[in-house]
């Protein structure tokens, strides 16, 4: 996303005063939510899973809030405004992906895990390196996604506020990063979920309002809307046909197929989406929240298509592109026109309102991502893999024992102090479930408090890393970064998750191979793609070391992830443990022993 010249029909002066005031209101409201939610300082269950007492409706809104990032709200509508039908393709991939989540992942993950994706794997593959690999992949995915959102936030907020200086963008990124650190460290999952809910309600309400105004404007004649959009797109009939963006060559078509594959398979591997299923009490509630999310996301994208067409019909593709080369301001510009045009009170209010909703969207999504990332770090890498590492010191303390078969991890020292009955899933050193449940009386244990503290510190650290990376990545295209995050999630997280849930013979070695076999090709292929070097819009425009022709690595790296898991399992020195799979199968399908 590049800096753009001031939009010609965008408002100036007092228009932005109102937007700034509304931005301030949103910051105050979200901080109030955070403080209210943060007053209840509980244990790990509160911090990671918000106490697990959200309703399916609430979680459905929170899921769609997590999913509909600014890249969706402004980005998809903007792509439709610029490229017509090819933009619609994006939205369909984002929606169909939810069927994978609904049918193959949501309920089973809710039943078998506690806080993170790696919990599900750890239930049957009790190895520290499995947990470390899955936790590491989750951190990488969320970091990519986080950088995408923050880069978008920087240019977007600056644009909405009417300044385009590099300084304004930089300060926006720092401010958004600071806010998200506060939300997560102070409020944990409870605050993050409520922020998502508020944001999703605002987003849906704003979209409905604009869509109704648009439909009224065209007297309900959708065909007329499409015709006018084609007319004002500068491309004529081709605007309504495939190929305007992805039709130039065979490579670009293949690139789109690669992106489509990453979109449809990536959602089910996104850590911040998976961790949402732990905020409801049962698998049935997880299913119902996914259904709510599908309804909300689907309805939203239908409206986004209409709004994208409306922006082209009423504002014009040229104007939209002039305001922002990626089309990100199409919806606010449409709001200005629908409200009565530049200079009218209605236009000003509507423009400020939609801008504020976009701002709330950015804040909510980065908070959700930071939380998922810090959970993966603290729960999987620190508590699950690092703290559980076999140590020679302290062997005299307590009844350290290896697990039945010596190959499993050793019970960590800090956990041995806990009563045996406290946590049967957490206390077995299965490259553990980390903080596990709290003590029976509800007070967090020492180990648990320690882990939550690490998670809070990790949130600060990850937030800081994301801010720095975003400042360097400001020239990168946001849609590309999001597509990349989906590709990494689909390559590294989804194969291992599906194999663990459904393949009887899957082994720990297969799991490790699957994660790295998807993660490494995905990242390497991107490093040698035209995105990093060799083109004018690349990260290093002056250099050219690319040899991989596609921008999105999904078509290669996703099959590699599946293949690596398969080969790793076949070459395992020891066979899969049928007892562990029996436990996973029974627990994931019935919910027995679920957290």
């Amino acid at each position, binding site marked *: 996303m590049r800096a753009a010249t001031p939009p010609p029909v965008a408002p100036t002066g007092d228009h932005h005063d109102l937007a700034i005031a509304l931005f301030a209101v949103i910051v105050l409201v979200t901080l109030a939510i955070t403080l209210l939610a943060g007053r209840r300082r509980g244990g790990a269950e509160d911090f990671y899973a918000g106490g697990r007492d959200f309703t399916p409706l609430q979680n459905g809104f929170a899921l769609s809030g997590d999913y509909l990032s600014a890249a969706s709200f402004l980005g998809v509508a903007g792509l439709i405004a610029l490229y017509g039908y090819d933009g619609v393709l994006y939205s369909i991939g984002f929606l169909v992906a939810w069927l994978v989540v609904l049918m193959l992942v949501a309920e089973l993950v809710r039943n078998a895990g506690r806080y993170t994706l790696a919990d599900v794997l750890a239930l049957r593959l009790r190895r520290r390196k499995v947990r470390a690999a899955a936790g590491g992949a989750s951190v990488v995915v969320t970091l990519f996604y986080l950088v995408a959102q923050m880069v978008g936030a920087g240019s977007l907020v600056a644009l909405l506020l009417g300044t385009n200086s590099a300084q304004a963008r930089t300060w926006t990124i720092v401010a958004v990063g600071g806010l998200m650190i506060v939300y997560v460290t102070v409020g944990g999952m409870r605050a993050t979920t409520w922020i998502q809910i508020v944001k999703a309600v605002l987003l849906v309400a704003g979209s409905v309002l604009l869509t109704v105004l648009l439909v009224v404007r065209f007297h309900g004649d959708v065909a007329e809307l499409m015709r006018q959009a084609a007319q004002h797109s500068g491309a004529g009939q081709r605007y309504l046909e495939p190929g305007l963006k992805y039709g130039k060559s065979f490579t670009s078509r293949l690139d789109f197929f690669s992106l489509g594959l990453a979109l449809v398979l990536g959602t089910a591997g996104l850590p911040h989406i998976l961790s949402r299923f732990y905020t409801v009490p049962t698998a049935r509630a997880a299913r119902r929240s996914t259904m709510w999310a599908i309804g909300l996301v689907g309805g939203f994208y239908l409206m986004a298509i209409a709004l994208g067409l409306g922006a082209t019909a009423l504002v014009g593709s040229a104007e939209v592109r002039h305001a922002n080369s990626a089309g990100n301001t199409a919806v606010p510009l449409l709001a200005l026109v629908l409200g009565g045009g530049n200079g009218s009170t209605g236009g000003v209010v509507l423009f400020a309102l939609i801008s504020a909703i976009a701002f709330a969207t950015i804040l909510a999504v980065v908070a959700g991502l930071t939380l998922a990332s810090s959970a993966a770090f603290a729960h999987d890498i620190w508590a699950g893999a690092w703290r559980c590492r076999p140590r020679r010191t302290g062997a005299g303390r307590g009844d350290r024992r290896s697990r039945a078969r010596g190959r499993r991890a050793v019970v960590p020292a800090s956990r041995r102090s806990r009563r045996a009955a406290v946590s049967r899933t957490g206390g077995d050193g299965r490259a553990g479930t980390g903080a596990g449940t709290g003590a029976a009386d509800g007070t967090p244990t020492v180990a648990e408090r320690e882990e939550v503290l690490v998670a809070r510190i990790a949130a600060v650290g990850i937030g800081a890393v994301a801010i720095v990376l975003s400042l360097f990545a400001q020239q990168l295209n946001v849609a590309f970064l999001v597509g990349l995050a989906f590709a990494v999630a689909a390559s590294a997280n989804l194969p291992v998750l599906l194999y663990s849930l459904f393949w009887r013979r899957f082994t720990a070695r297969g799991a490790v191979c699957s994660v790295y076999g998807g993660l490494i090709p995905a990242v390497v292929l991107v490093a040698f793609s035209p995105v990093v070097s060799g083109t004018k819009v690349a990260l290093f425009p002056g250099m050219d070391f690319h040899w991989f022709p596609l921008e999105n690595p999904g078509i290669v790296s996703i099959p590699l992830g599946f293949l690596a898991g398969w080969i790793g399992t076949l070459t395992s020195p020891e066979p899969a443990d049928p007892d562990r799979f029996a436990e996973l199968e029974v627990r994931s399908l019935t919910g027995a022993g*679920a957290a």
Partner: protein
Amino acid sequence: MSGAESGAAPGTVPGADGGGTDSSTEVYKAVQQSAAFRRIRHSYRTFVFPVSGVFLAWYLLYVAAQAAAPGLMRHPVAGPVNVAWLLGLLQFATTFLLTWLYSRNARTKRDRAALSLRWDTQDQLR
């Protein structure tokens, strides 16, 4: 652990500090072999596996058609709507339809049996 779920909490299942102690492993193995569990797994898999294959194939064919058959996709259907738009809107429709079908299948064929098996299993683990 909030009180509401403590009845189902793993913390209340004693004798299973390891989760892998022999008794709990035996319980899980026995449940896995039971007819009730096989029925649940059967009704889950016979719905989910074929349907996932179908919707993934349908989506990927649709995406591939943009590249492979642009002429067909351009073919007008009604007014400004061409085959590409029609198929795209059908993707929305099938997504909503399959969501509803899946939920109906789970509600009528699985939920009740799974819940009673859950309590049974947890009783045996006790």
